[in-house]
């Protein structure tokens, strides 16, 4: 079976819509009969990424490829970039403004969560240009 490729626009100006793409991917994986644990890991990692794109980068695009043994997620934005990736990966470190915290996010858990729930994750970022985040969830892998 060749992979199923999906593309989503993640709007940057509407916090209430953040998560729509992840929700759609989750529904599709459920329909395709994927393992519930793998579905949850894909959904959480992509959702955190989507929230990050809305909070920090003014939105972006999400590309998802679904294959029998793996799900690949690429999140691309043209936001401010991440100045210190190592710091951003630390649990609890956040540059999100207080207003974001009042929405229930910005606890500095986004990137650490994505790393925790995926099997591979790479961050390609440049200050002033944007960030591309690639994540892979292996379907038979048991976390």
């Amino acid at each position, binding site marked *: 079976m060749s992979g199923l490729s999906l593309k989503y626009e993640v709007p940057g100006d509407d916090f*209430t819509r953040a998560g729509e793409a*992840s929700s759609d991917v989750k529904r599709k994986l459920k329909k395709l009969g994927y393992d519930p644990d793998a579905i949850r890991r894909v959904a959480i990692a992509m959702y955190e990424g989507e929230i990050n794109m809305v909070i920090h980068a003014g939105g972006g695009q999400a590309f998802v490829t679904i294959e029998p043994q793996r799900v690949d997620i690429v999140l691309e934005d043209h936001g401010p970039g991440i100045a210190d990736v190592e710091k951003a990966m630390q649990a609890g470190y956040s540059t999100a403004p207080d207003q974001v915290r009042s929405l229930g996010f910005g606890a500095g858990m986004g990137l650490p969560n994505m790393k925790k729930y995926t099997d591979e994750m790479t961050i390609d970022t440049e200050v002033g240009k944007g960030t591309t985040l690639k994540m892979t969830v292996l379907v038979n892998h048991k976390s």
Partner: protein
Amino acid sequence: MKISDVAAILDAQVLVEGNMDTEVKTACGSDMMSDVLAFVKDQSVLLTGLMNPQVVRTAEMMDMHCIVFVRDKVPDATVLRLAEDRDMTVLQTRYRMFTACGKLYDAGLRGGCEKE
């Protein structure tokens, strides 16, 4: 216990019915959705004082079945509609977070993340 038991224990209003017969064993109380996404595994009930649609989305990603809004907070129609679309139960209780969690723990619900 069933979600209907959660509603009874918390003397809660049922804002969205969902499936009240669903069995639940674990719960999580937090206003920070990032924390819910980080530390929760196999949780079924989310207690929160946060009032935006991301509460429903977070619960959805975590496969949770029931959201309890504490301190008598009333979510807006968007929140309720999202929950309805996902077949989730939404409850509203007058109890504050600490008391609501305590009552459910006392009745047998557990955190699910650690050995208790």
